[in-house]
């Protein structure tokens, strides 16, 4: 047998195998993308008609409003979502980033193994339980549902994701950067704040956005914390200290309502939520892409 023939044959086989594997990869990508496209187009198809000017400037009110064709919308829901999600981010960022720094920068810390387990457990815990926790911590003592309670519940969703993202973003920064900082006589906290964190900025922001996008879509933890509200509170502080509407939870309650006008508004709320979440993820992608370009 000629050695050249053997080589030729195996090369052909390899090419076929290679193409087959690449084909499988394309197929799995398609399987992942298809449901997403179906969901997005179905939501848009059902909700686009309810998306009009009124939708963005009026509050929902009672079901009769919609049934009598009076102007109705979800302005209070959109504003409420902004308030609750911002509160959640404000609570989750310091806690999540703090524990992420502890995990990455102080690997010898005795608390770290416990912290990791707690973090992973919290990450895997059903979101509704986080709602219950916030109910016990905030709603019960305050005696009322509130945007604050909703923010705390969503913070529990964000914290483990932010902590993990912070840890891995900081771990990606070469150890030599820290040593270089120490070698010019900087205290350790200063090295972390001024050299490690700025270097990891892109990774950190991406992680925050992913955590935020994840929490923005959660309805379960908000059911008995921020509760929901058909009206805009008289004063904006009512959104923090009183029951407040949020998109995912409003979407749910519109969907289970018996009014077909409200069903359409639910689909429209879905569009807003999808656009928001997709925008966040695209933003996160762009940031990561920039990082690759730099290096």
């Amino acid at each position, binding site marked *: 047998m000629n050695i050249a023939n053997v080589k030729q044959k195996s090369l052909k086989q390899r090419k076929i195998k290679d193409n087959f594997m690449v084909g499988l990869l394309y197929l799995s990508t398609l399987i992942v993308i298809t449901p997403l496209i179906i969901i997005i187009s179905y939501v848009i198809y059902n909700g686009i008609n309810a998306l009009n000017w009124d939708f963005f400037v009026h509050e929902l009110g009672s079901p009769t409003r919609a049934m009598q064709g009076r102007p109705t919308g979800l302005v209070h829901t959109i504003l409420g979502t902004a308030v609750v999600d911002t509160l959640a981010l404000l609570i989750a960022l310091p806690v999540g980033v703090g524990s992420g720094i502890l995990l990455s920068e102080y690997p010898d810390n005795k608390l770290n193994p416990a912290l990791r387990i707690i973090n992973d457990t919290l990450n895997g815990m059903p979101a509704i339980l986080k709602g219950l926790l916030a109910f016990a911590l905030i709603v019960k003592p305050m005696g009322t549902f509130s945007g604050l309670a909703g923010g705390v519940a969503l913070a529990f969703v964000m914290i483990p994701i932010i902590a993990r993202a912070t840890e891995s973003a900081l771990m990606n920064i070469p150890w030599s950067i820290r040593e270089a900082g*120490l070698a*010019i006589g900087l205290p350790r906290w200063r090295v972390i704040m001024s050299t490690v964190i700025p270097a990891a900025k892109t990774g950190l922001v991406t992680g925050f956005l992913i955590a935020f996008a994840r929490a923005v879509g959660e309805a379960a933890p908000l059911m008995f914390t921020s509760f929901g509200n058909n009206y805009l509170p008289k004063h904006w502080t009512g959104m923090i200290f009183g029951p407040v509407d949020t998109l995912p939870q409003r979407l749910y309650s519109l969907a289970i309502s018996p009014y077909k006008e409200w069903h359409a508004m639910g689909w429209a709320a879905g569009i807003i939520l999808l656009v928001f979440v997709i925008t966040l993820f695209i933003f996160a992608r762009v940031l990561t892409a920039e990082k690759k370009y730099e290096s």
Partner: protein
Amino acid sequence: MEKIPEKNKEIIIKNDSIDMANCPTCSTKVRIEAKNLTIKYGKEFGVKNVSVPIHDKNVTALIGPSGCGKTTFLRCLNRMHDLNKKVSISGQVLLDGQDIYDSKVNPVNIRRKIGMVFQKPTPFPTMSIYDNVVAGLKLVGIRNKSLLNEVCEKALTQAALFDEVKDRLKSPGGSLSGGQQQRLSIARALAIEPEVILMDEPTSSLDPKSTLKIEDLIFELKKNYSIVIVTHNLPQAARVSDCSIFMYLGELIEYGKTEKLFKNPSDKRTEEYITGKFG
């Protein structure tokens, strides 16, 4: 193997027989003194019972085959092992007579006196050239612009980099070439005006031209600083250093004037290493 000539026997210095105060090799005073220094990684020895003086206004080269403990020893001199809990250190490192491992001593203060340049250039990636150089001052609260400008220019000039970067001080430190980045790292170490500079194979990743510039720089710096340099490049050790320390398997084998150590080594292992028989 030739027998070591009788007249060179005097420079054979065993660990325990070095007369620190009256070191025969150098006239300047002793700046750093390692005393029975032992460094362990877990249970493995990195450095075994090393005692050696480092003189002021002098270049001391640390030579020896890979894994002999040169870098481990060097990093010990400004407490760079502190972050690694697996490293245990016994013995003393005296800086002007004071033990830097004393519990009262703040490692930050030690590192401001004993600067370090690493094997690979390590510019802070998000900072400009200017900010990189003055990082050691700016980040501890020195805000005086004219002072910072002055320090920046002086350090960059000392590091033979100023002319190449003076028009783009605000561009990122990472935009420089490898050789320039290494000189930037040196400038950054000089900016805080340390008294001792430790260099861990500072030219190993550089081209001959940049290497030459850094060697020239070492000559310049030695007028004011005391320098310890780890190098695998024996001709370089011979060119730049006044004293040399030869280490092997964590032990100090020989210490003495570079010229003597290279021309008439007292220990067989030193001779074999220098002549390229192992290592």
